[in-house]
């Protein structure tokens, strides 16, 4: 019979190989699902994973779009991974993303139609401040009253969504919008526009910053004392005290880092691809980034790969919808399968499977 033995340490080989295996198993299971839906499975898989990168008509546009869509996921997931390593669970990045966009966008719109070089930097800083401020609520409540940061940060997402609806319909509503909701479009406000850096690619400053953040996190975790403190706190708060870590400061640092990066992602998205604050401005990057952080095993380069993979399935998924008439639910199911197989295959790195024969006697 099969026996599962817990490994003393997670297997390095299996940790490295499981993401690849998970993708392969997803392709097979997804293919079966597409076949059941009456589509050619090979064509469907090819459209989702191949066409955005290699299709002669579409790839020139789709390739940079993969980076554009991955950028906010990377920024947020990088921030979250710091806290997750220290066992500090910020689940409310979506809210910090929204608040960053509102504060940054609000500051920019306050100066409309003034054109000045300092508006853009001020807007970006305000975005970071907005995200940090929102993340400080669960941080301070945790320090002061020992509340659970998971619950508080999550609940604040819903508060921020109402706040977003309120400013889209009231305070920041476009005065020239004939009563319709939504702010002015920042793409049309030169001083606040986070436009594309290379013509026709859609790549904006946020994509570059996301790339930098990957290496920044690597440097922090690997070489900086703070990175060590984060890891120790994650192993045991008691031990970390002996190592000279102030646990309260650690809570503040982790939530500020993740909140600030989420806010930054929010303001880049608002001033770039999205353009305007509206009721539906947030599309779930803050939640998807949690998945990306774990899919990337809290490793900065893993996070980058995971974000690119998620982004690819979104963009390929759009193509599969209008080229093959696949329902969007099938694309979501495929994304779900990917996560499911990845997490379930963690089992292989944690356990050793051996075959034992019953001894007679």
């Amino acid at each position, binding site marked *: 019979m099969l026996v599962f033995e817990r490994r003393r340490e997670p297997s390095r080989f299996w940790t490295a190989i499981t993401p690849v295996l998970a993708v392969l198993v997803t392709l097979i299971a997804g293919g079966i699902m597409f076949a059941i839906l009456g589509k050619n499975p090979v064509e469907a898989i090819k459209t989702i994973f191949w066409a955005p990168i290699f299709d002669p008509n579409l790839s020139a546009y789709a390739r940079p779009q993969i980076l554009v869509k991955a950028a906010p996921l990377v920024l947020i997931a990088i921030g979250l991974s710091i806290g997750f390593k220290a066992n500090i669970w910020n689940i409310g990045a979506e809210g910090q993303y929204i608040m960053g966009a509102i504060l940054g966008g609000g500051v920019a719109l306050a100066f409309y139609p003034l054109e000045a070089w300092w508006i853009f930097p001020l807007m970006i800083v305000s975005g970071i401040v907005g995200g940090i401020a929102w993340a400080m609520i669960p941080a301070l409540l945790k320090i002061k009253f020992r509340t659970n940061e998971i619950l508080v940060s999550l609940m604040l997402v819903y508060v921020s969504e109402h706040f977003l609806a309120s400013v889209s319909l009231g305070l920041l509503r476009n005065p020239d919008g004939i009563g319709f909701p939504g702010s002015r479009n920042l793409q049309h406000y030169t001083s606040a526009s986070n436009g594309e850096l290379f013509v026709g690619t859609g790549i904006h400053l946020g994509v570059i910053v996301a790339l930098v953040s990957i290496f920044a996190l690597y440097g922090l975790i690997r070489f900086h004392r703070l990175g060590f403190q984060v890891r120790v706190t994650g192993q045991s708060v008691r031990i970390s005290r002996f190592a000279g870590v102030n646990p309260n400061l650690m809570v503040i640092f982790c939530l500020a880092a993740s909140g600030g990066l989420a806010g930054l992602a929010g303001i880049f998205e608002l001033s770039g691809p999205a353009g305007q604050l509206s009721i539906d401005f947030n599309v779930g990057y803050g939640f998807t980034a949690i998945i990306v952080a774990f899919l990337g095993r809290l490793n900065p380069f893993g996070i980058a790969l995971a974000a690119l993979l998620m982004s690819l399935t979104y963009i390929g998924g759009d193509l599969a919808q209008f080229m093959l008439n696949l*329902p969007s639910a099938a694309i979501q199911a495929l994304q779900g399968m990917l996560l499911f197989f990845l997490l379930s295959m963690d089992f292989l790195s944690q356990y050793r499977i051996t075959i034992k024969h019953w001894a007679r006697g």
Partner: protein
Amino acid sequence: MTRNILQKVFAILASIFLTFSLAHAEPAKVGFIYVGPVGDFGWTYEHDQGRLAVEEAFGDKVETSYVENVPEGADAERVLTQMALAGNDLIFTTSFGYMDPTINVAAKFPDVKFEHATGYKRADNVSIYSARFYEGRAVIGHIAGKMTKTNQIGYIASFPIPEVIRGINSAYIHAKKVNPDVEFKIVWVFTWFDPAKEADAAQTLIEQGVDVIMQHTDSTAPMTIAEEKGIFAFGQASDMMEFGPTARLSSIIDNWAPYYVARTQALLDGTWESVDVWDGISTGMVEIGEFSDRIPEDVRAEAQAMADAISDGSYHPFTGPINRQDGSAWLGDGEIADDGTLLGMNFYVEGLSGSIPN
């Protein structure tokens, strides 16, 4: 001799090639982008019915495709660009929030035609179209006013935008006209499609004594709740008969099919031009669903008469005297609201309680 044969072979090859290429003349491609799932049995469902009508009408000459559940904003712009790159000739963008993305993408693809629903920004290759849903609201408001026993009518509203406010006002004016004691209880759910939230809103309204529910959201959840609790409701966007066979009194159906077929025909004929269309009951873009037998005979006749009068233009749902909520005069006796005011409507009419959230 050989030359002759070669010439003949070429001629045959050429004719084969010609027939082949004619038989495979590229069909026109028409794309649709939806904010919800095609299975919402409301807003998106009806747009997709319109798409299917285009397929039905043109057969092999047209190829349609769609992308559903596309968030408004950056994702919409990307999806639209991809659809344009994939060779779509005409693209219908079926939600208000697709307005700026549609304008942006249309500027990059001047040869592709776009049709944006419910917005206000036009371009040479962008038409706008919407329906006068408030005409339907007037008819069902009349029925609701007659049918309520508790004189409490519940209204599940999505977002405080002019279209929704217009609907509330139109329904209220006509309910009040036939039942002076009527009161509206309005719940704002801040979503177009969220069955759980819409169901909660319906429950709350029923607990407050409401016995007729109207909705300006896209799911069938309020209808289902109304059926369970034994009160009345109206189908929204689509007929919703199956979801509340006894609760459903009538419905406002968005029938986009004739418009979509006409616009596709214009594309094929090469006569497509940017237009601004705001049609109602008269062209069939707004349809009143079949009246339930539970509505008394005379009320059915009155409702039908009103729909007919709106259709032939002899009656406008916003005909004065109508005051604003604060008591100030809006329309004088016999005065008819102009389209500009209606399009930007941001106030309640007199008698409605509560304020528009912002």
